[in-house]
């Protein structure tokens, strides 16, 4: 069994997992454990995992970080703050554990719950039990989800009651500090009907640290509720990252998601959403990979009821020996008439050694629908490079400017100004010589 190391490590730590004494949770964990024991981590033999081989995770023997404080390195406050949005509440998870002291949660409105999941299991177990594991459906279940369900140690719990609109964004900062550490988090974001919120999830780790982040966020958006969700993945260049965002959208719920992937060595992003009647879902993604980075984006949308709208817009920029994957699947169920679904993936291949695998899939089981998909893979346009050169911009800067521009178009879709500025900063750091400077933006 390929996952024996992890089963053994967690067997020893089992009593330290949160939610002890909650029979419903024990049952979920037991079922997941049984599944994971049988299946192990996903294998490239599974269709949905054919481009991504996670066997390095089995070989690396990452160490679960649970129980006593296991702070790997002293956390540099100013470094952490460089990821923090000035205008947001922030909930910080250090090595997968909620850190109250580093979080900034003052002034959260009455009735709204924002806390660590372990804490929520103590304080509001019945609320957590209503939602935990209800968004991930059996048809999505694979070894990583089972692994996470069996062993998650903490996460964030966000519960916004009906009709409440959060004025400030909420940022969940996942930070890794422990060499060869493993954080396994489960977060829940629940918006009751007519609620509105903006949630940013930032993932980062100390430079050059090797670690594994396995983070699942289950999101439930009630009728007419609106969630803007951002994921900024700036993991260290040696990090392994599995991120699953699973969403259930009630009638007329709106979900707008931006997935920015810059860091990590081996990365799998899953974003799955199920849309009820007249729900709207917009998924924007940008992945920028270089060296030997591998980023796999697995996007799945189920239109289960009529009149849903979905838009997927993903862009990849690949250099060196990097590999990028876009697997986008839209399923329009038989009842989902009048569905309007569009999927687009554009990729810029900047090196002959880089590779992109892009696989858009439409499965349409209803007859009165509007669905389209488009994919492009290309290089920088020589005409555009010459145009910039003829304006006095040297070739390297011209190429960088055009690459920045291609990526920046996605960044400009970020509605949250403070985050957009932060991401543009990162973008300019990745392409220093563009002739464009931060202070102009």
């Amino acid at each position, binding site marked *: 069994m390929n996952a024996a190391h992890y089963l053994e490590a967690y067997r020893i730590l089992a009593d330290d997992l949160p939610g002890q004494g909650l029979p419903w949770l024990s049952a979920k964990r037991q079922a997941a454990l049984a599944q994971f024991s049988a299946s192990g981590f996903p294998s490239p033999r599974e269709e949905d995992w054919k481009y991504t081989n996670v066997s390095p995770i089995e070989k690396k023997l990452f160490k679960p970080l649970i129980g006593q404080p296991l702070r790997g390195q002293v956390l540099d406050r100013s470094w952490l703050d460089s990821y923090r949005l000035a205008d947001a509440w922030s909930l910080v998870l250090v090595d997968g554990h909620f850190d109250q002291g580093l979080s900034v949660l003052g002034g959260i409105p009455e009735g709204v719950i924002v806390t660590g999941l372990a804490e929520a299991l103590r304080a509001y177990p019945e609320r957590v039990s209503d939602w935990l594991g209800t968004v991930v459906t059996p048809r999505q279940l694979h070894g990583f989800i089972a692994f996470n369900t069996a062993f998650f140690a903490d996460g964030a719990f966000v519960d916004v009651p009906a009709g409440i609109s959060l004025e400030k964004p909420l940022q969940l900062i996942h930070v890794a500090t422990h060499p060869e550490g493993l954080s396994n988090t489960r977060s829940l974001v629940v918006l009751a009907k007519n609620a509105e919120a903006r949630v940013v999830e930032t993932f980062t780790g100390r430079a050059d640290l090797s670690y594994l982040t396995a983070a699942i966020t289950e999101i439930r958006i009630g009728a007419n509720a609106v969630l803007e969700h951002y994921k900024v993945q700036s993991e260290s260049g040696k990090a392994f990252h599995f991120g699953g965002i699973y969403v259930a959208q009630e009638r007329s719920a709106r979900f707008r998601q931006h997935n920015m992937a810059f860091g990590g060595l081996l990365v799998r992003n899953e974003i799955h959403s199920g849309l009820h009647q007249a729900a709207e879902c917009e998924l924007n993604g940008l992945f920028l990979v270089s060296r030997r980075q591998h980023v796999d984006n697995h996007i799945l949308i189920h239109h289960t009821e009529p009149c849903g709208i979905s838009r997927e817009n993903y862009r990849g920029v690949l250099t060196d020996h990097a590999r990028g994957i876009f697997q986008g699947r839209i399923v329009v169920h038989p009842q989902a008439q009048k569905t309007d679904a569009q999927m687009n993936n554009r990729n810029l291949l900047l090196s002959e050694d880089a590779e992109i695998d892009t696989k858009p899939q439409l499965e349409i089981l209803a007859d009165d629908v509007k669905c389209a998909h488009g994919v492009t893979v290309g290089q920088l346009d020589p005409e555009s490079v010459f*145009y910039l050169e003829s304006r006095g911009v040297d070739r390297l*800067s*011209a190429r960088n400017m055009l690459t920045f521009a*291609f990526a920046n178009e996605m960044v400009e879709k970020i509605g949250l100004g403070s985050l957009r500025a932060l991401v543009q900063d990162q973008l300019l750091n990745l392409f220093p010589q563009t*002739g*464009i400077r931060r202070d102009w933006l």
Partner: protein
Amino acid sequence: MLKIENLHVQVEDKPILKGISLHVKEGEVHAIMGPNGSGKSTLAHVLAGREGYVITAGRITYRGRNLMDMAPEERAREGVFLAFQYPVEIPGVSNIYLLKAALNAMRKHRGLNELDAIDFLKMIKEKIRLVEMDEQFLYRAVNEGFSGGEKKRNEILQMAVLAPSLCILDETDSGLDIDALKIVSDGVNSLRAPDRSFILVTHYQRLLDYIKPDQVHVLAHGRIVKSGDASLAHELESKGYGWVDQATVAGA
């Protein structure tokens, strides 16, 4: 300013220019006219340094230097400017970034300090009036979604900001309605100066009603077949390019 001697150029082994000689002095405006496929645009692109054009013979001297040894960006920084027939759209980069980046590169090359933000904006606002563009164009992506006329005006705006010595306008008049043509021409005329020269590449004579050339050259089959003053353009307009073709054949 610019001296072209016996220039031969091939594209993909096909000779396009077959012995062009042209001398443009400081402050002069030269018009290059000719039918489609005569090599006009090739000449414009060769001067700007575009890849894919092979110079098989001849020389190009710009302000005493061998232009052919200079990379495109160096030509630009030394004052050569090409206004494109089909300006490229660059989504994701706003006009103002491109203008700043280009101007900074140029000033750095000339050993000047970069303009500070306030002086830059002041200068830009002055120049944008020249081409009667709304200031919001500065913050839109380069040429993205611009109409044909807006793109051409944007080229003239870039030209005004970069203040080149040699301005090459490649069919800037094509696709312009009469109002846009007038705005573009007024912009060009306001940039005329004793130390600045222009090469206007055009198919039609009408541009020359607005910008009066010192010399007109007719290009056909890769050669200059006729040169003269502004009246040559009118003659061409009334007789058509067929007349030049016949003259070429007769002269050959």
